[in-house]
């Protein structure tokens, strides 16, 4: 079964610093990968997604993520963090055609981002 690991439960950065949130997946076929963000008291907002093609994908709010098949990773990056980026970030994977479990997103445990002024 597919699984997603976010090794960092909590990350603290200073405003203006760069950010990288790690995500590793375990899945045999081509994964479809997503990053969602959840602000306090809010729902899940899609930041970006990877289906195929260019392995570096751009998302909203200045975020980008790079798919590395050799490392089974899909790390989220931002060159300069803003205080409003403080939230919880979730990596997720869905199986592709040929799999046995369509439609089901499997989430990582989330990374809480704290931004210091």
């Amino acid at each position, binding site marked *: 079964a597919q699984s997603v690991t976010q090794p960092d439960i909590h990350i603290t950065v200073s405003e203006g610093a760069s950010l990288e949130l790690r995500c590793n997946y375990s899945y045999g076929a*081509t994964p*479809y990968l*997503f990053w*969602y963000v959840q602000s306090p008291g*809010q*729902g*899940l*907002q*899609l930041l970006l*997604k990877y*289906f*195929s093609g260019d392995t570096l994908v751009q998302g909203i709010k200045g975020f980008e993520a790079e798919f590395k098949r050799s490392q089974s990773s899909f790390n989220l990056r931002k060159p300069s963090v803003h205080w409003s980026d403080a939230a919880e970030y*979730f990596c*997720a994977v*869905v*199986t*592709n*055609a040929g*799999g046995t*479990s*369509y*439609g*089901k*997103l*499997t*989430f*990582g*445990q*989330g990374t809480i981002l704290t931004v210091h002024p």
Partner: protein
Amino acid sequence: EPEVTQTPSHQVTQMGQEVILRCVPISNHLYFYWYRQILGQKVEFLVSFYNNEISEKSEIFDDQFSVERPDGSNFTLKIRSTKLEDSAMYFCASSEALAGWTGSSTDTQYFGPGTRLTVL
């Protein structure tokens, strides 16, 4: 921009009572999902729904749970007899196509803001 809406935002109920959580998916979407997030834990898949049938359900989705699309716009999750451990945030999501099927943007699931269910 179209969005998924959910009501109520917070539901408090007594153990053993029935609750119905409501969702209005994005209008041209055909696939609907429920997820839940127990406080401090991962977001977990509960069920997917298409063409008035359940496509897939998780182990969590036992006989106490049911889903329905009673009309052309609403999608509901019913818990027949709530337990303390049902306390969680419940998220509804929808997509144009079944996530993972086409490999295109139409697979993307859009989430609602959630309903926080508290069982006392």
